[in-house]
């Protein structure tokens, strides 16, 4: 078919140029007129060319309607009106306005060229962009977990075997509770036995209906309201990434109130988040036993109960990945169990971080961690291994040594780990000036180092850019976006991002601050696409140091032949470096 494309506008003709490109690609004949061509001239051209379609483009303002109508009148007077179809497009054009102006069709803002092509070719157009269908992704897919260097493999094997041999005949209150809980979930009435293994807070709750401080029950009406509210929420799914399918973007929640959590999750989903991470209150980690029921908490952290988790789950989009943190406290294995039963996709286990910076006794968390890893394998719940001990001052290589031990141990037990180096401005980095010139090299070095050692998914967290954020929301969104771009450039699997007020919120974080970073990250992905960020030569130097540091650490731990002792004695980080073996649950490990 033949087309005359006429920008009835002093300057704007981009839309018509794009349309022209597509029409030519499809074998049509086109005459693209320059902007500001006189209408009389256009009529003459149309009389000579006799096109099938005359495509007019105009950003309508008052007065432009008269211009567009006069053009139709001129075509009419010239006897062309019935010989050619006349189509108008532009920012303020609607079907109604096209009818009023006497055009055959009108296309407004956000029209894709596909829609126009479908109209002129007589085909049907389905609005594809509206029905973005997100699917849930398995972050661990395609990774072999092979330890690439035999020297590392030997050390990791040795350490893992020692841990497994040591844990084999040991148990804890948490493990025993988990076993009871599993039966209770099958319908057995074993509450009394369960409570025998719990702290007084939990016992009082069940026996005397005494709620812990700042905790209250969610009423039936509130739950119904929640369901109505969640049901009413409807939005088109959105994908933040531009041309790549990685990294997935996670946000954290844990306001204490499942309602607020759900609303934060829905907003994050609407703005393109791929996954969410559940954070529980810190006291939950130091208390033996878990509560039951729908519970709201007045302070940070949303209480882990099966009911709370199921409520959150009911609010999640089917494509949203959901990670329930389990790694650090006295209820680690039981949390993995509840997460699996509530339908979580991921959990979080790291005995090294949990015992050196999470407050739990190393011996206890090692026993619990091994059991939690077994559950993670049994329920096919991949686990991520955060290394936030770096924030306390532990050097990256020591944190990574611990992470690799937990990863390798999990693999041996049949579980699928995800490595979680921090993208951060850590105390160790500050002291050693690793980021004097840029934030790129050292973060790249971390990834290079880990990739050199193990074929595993990498998900920087938690959140990326930790300690580079300030109270300034623009700065905060910017630094998150740049770290996201770096993760994308490195081809990493996922990232966790903070809201722009997360680091400095003096109360609950705000929803608009979440949108800030989701928007900023989308913009960074759009900006870089497949383009890469190039580190300086320093990155390679740092990577080598990290690899060597990991090796030295693992070697010392292997030589010690006692993982738990290595934790107590500071081989994964000394007290000076900010690693303090926790006390919660000390002396509770029993031989069995």
């Amino acid at each position, binding site marked *: 078919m033949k087309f005359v494309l006429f920008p009835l506008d002093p300057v704007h003709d981009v839309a018509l140029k794009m349309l022209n490109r597509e029409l030519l690609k499809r074998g049509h004949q086109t005459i693209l007129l320059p902007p500001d061509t006189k209408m009389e001239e256009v009529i003459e051209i149309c009389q000579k060319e006799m096109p099938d379609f005359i495509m007019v483009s105009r950003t309508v303002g008052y007065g432009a309607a008269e211009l567009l109508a006069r053009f139709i009148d001129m075509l009419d007077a010239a006897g062309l009106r*019935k010989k050619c179809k006349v189509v108008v497009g532009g920012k303020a054009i609607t079907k109604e306005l096209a009818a009023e102006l006497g055009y055959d069709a009108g296309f407004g803002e956000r029209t894709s060229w596909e829609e126009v092509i479908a109209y002129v070719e007589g085909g049907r157009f389905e609005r594809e962009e509206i029905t973005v269908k997100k699917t849930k992704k398995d972050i661990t897919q395609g990774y072999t977990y092979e330890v690439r260097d035999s020297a590392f493999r030997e050390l990791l094997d040795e350490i893992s075997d020692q841990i497994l041999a040591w844990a084999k005949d040991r148990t804890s209150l948490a493990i025993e509770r988990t076993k009871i809980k599993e039966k209770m979930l099958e319908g057995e009435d074993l509450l009394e036995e369960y409570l025998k293994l719990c702290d007084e807070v939990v016992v009082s709750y069940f026996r005397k209906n005494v709620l812990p401080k700042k905790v209250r029950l969610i009423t039936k009406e509130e739950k119904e309201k929640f369901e109505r509210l969640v049901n009413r929420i409807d939005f088109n799914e959105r994908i933040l990434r531009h041309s790549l399918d990685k990294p997935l973007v996670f946000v954290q929640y844990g306001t204490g109130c499942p309602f607020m959590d759900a609303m934060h999750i829905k907003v994050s989903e609407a703005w393109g988040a791929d996954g969410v991470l559940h954070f529980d209150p810190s006291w939950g980690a130091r208390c033996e036993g878990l509560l039951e029921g729908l519970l709201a908490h007045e302070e940070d952290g949303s209480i882990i109960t099966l009911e709370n988790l199921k409520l959150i789950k009911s609010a999640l989009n089917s494509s949203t990945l959901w990670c329930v943190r389990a790694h650090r406290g006295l209820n680690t294995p039981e949390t993995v169990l509840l997460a699996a039963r509530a339908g979580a996709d991921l959990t979080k286990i790291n005995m090294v971080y949990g015992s050196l910076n999470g407050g739990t006794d190393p011996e206890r968390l090692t026993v619990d961690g091994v059991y939690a890893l077994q559950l993670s394998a049994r329920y096919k719940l991949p686990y991520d291994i955060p290394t936030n001990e770096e924030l306390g001052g532990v050097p990256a290589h020591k944190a990574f040594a611990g992470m690799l031990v937990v990863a390798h141990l999990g693999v041996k037990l049949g579980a699928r780990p995800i490595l979680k180096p921090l993208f951060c401005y850590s105390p160790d980095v500050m002291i050693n000036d690793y980021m004097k010139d840029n934030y790129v090299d050292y973060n790249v070095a971390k990834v290079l180092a880990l990739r050199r050692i193990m074929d595993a998914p990498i998900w920087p967290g938690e959140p990326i850019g930790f300690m580079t954020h300030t109270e300034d929301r623009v700065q905060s969104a910017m630094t998150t976006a740049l770290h996201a771009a770096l993760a994308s450039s490195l081809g990493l699997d996922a990232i966790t991002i903070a809201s722009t007020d997360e680091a400095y919120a003096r109360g609950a974080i705000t929803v608009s601050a979440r949108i800030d970073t989701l928007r900023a990250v989308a913009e960074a992905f759009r900006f870089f696409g497949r383009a890469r960020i190039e580190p300086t030569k320093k990155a390679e130097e740092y990577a080598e140091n990290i690899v060597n540091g990991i090796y030295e650490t693992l070697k010392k731990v292997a030589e010690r032949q006692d993982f738990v002792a290595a934790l107590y004695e500071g081989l994964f980080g000394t007290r000076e470096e900010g690693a303090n073996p926790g006390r919660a649950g000390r002396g509770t490990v029993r031989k069995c």
Partner: protein
Amino acid sequence: MLSLGVLGTAKNTGKTTTLNALLKCLSGKSIAITSIGFDGEDLDHITGLPKPKVLIEEGSFAVTSEEAAKHSTARLHLLRRFDIRTALGSICLYRVRQAGTVILIGPHSSEDLLTVKQTLEKDMVEVFLIDGAINRIVPFQHSDFVVLAVGASRSTNLDFLLTETRIIVKMLRLPIGGKDRKLVEGLVSLEKLSSLRGERILVESPMHLLLTEDFVRLEQLLNDLDVAVMRKPELLCVTVNPCYPERRMEGYALARIDLSELARRIERELDVPCLNVMEEEERLCRIVVEKIDKQG
């Protein structure tokens, strides 16, 4: 059947208000009604300001699109489907079974309007009322009569409005010519006119001359030419609308200027009845009914 069109020089010059008045004036007759654009919508497609509704009586005919018919409160009975498509469905002929408002989306080209007109001749229609669209004029070449709607929305400069009206009136008064003249078909641009200086020419209709942006030059050129037209509508009167949408920081607001002086000058200087429909509806009726009764 007689056809009567309302043509305007811009949006919001009072076409639909005039049309509504004409519907009232002609209410004892068998009327068919259409628009070459879009009529009867609640809010203007560009300014967002309220628009006059089109009220239609039982027994009248409406020519409108299928989609527009669905959104009318008048009960419409489908009589005929024309092979004319618009951006909002095919054009059909309806009979009004119960009075109410109607949304009009009619034929928007001369050819389609002519087709509809010829079809209606065969029906029992006495008067075919055609509302204009924006500033469109060309389809009215096939109308028997026209009312010209001018107003402040075109310009608030009274001299400009008077000049423009004068030239339109002048064109509508060009004589009907015969085959002895040099025929200039289609759109007649100023370039073409100036190349024909001194000749005796015949153009299709006054509308074919009026599509230039430069009316003053058109008027000058006509002084050096002997121009006649093949067909034209007869101008019954001019209406003036003093209200206009004024651009504000956000959107538009309705503003008003005094156009009584303009109306007086149009009557006096151009020798054509000129009135404000909102204030002189009866006078409009007298002019129109008298003419139609005489012709009919």
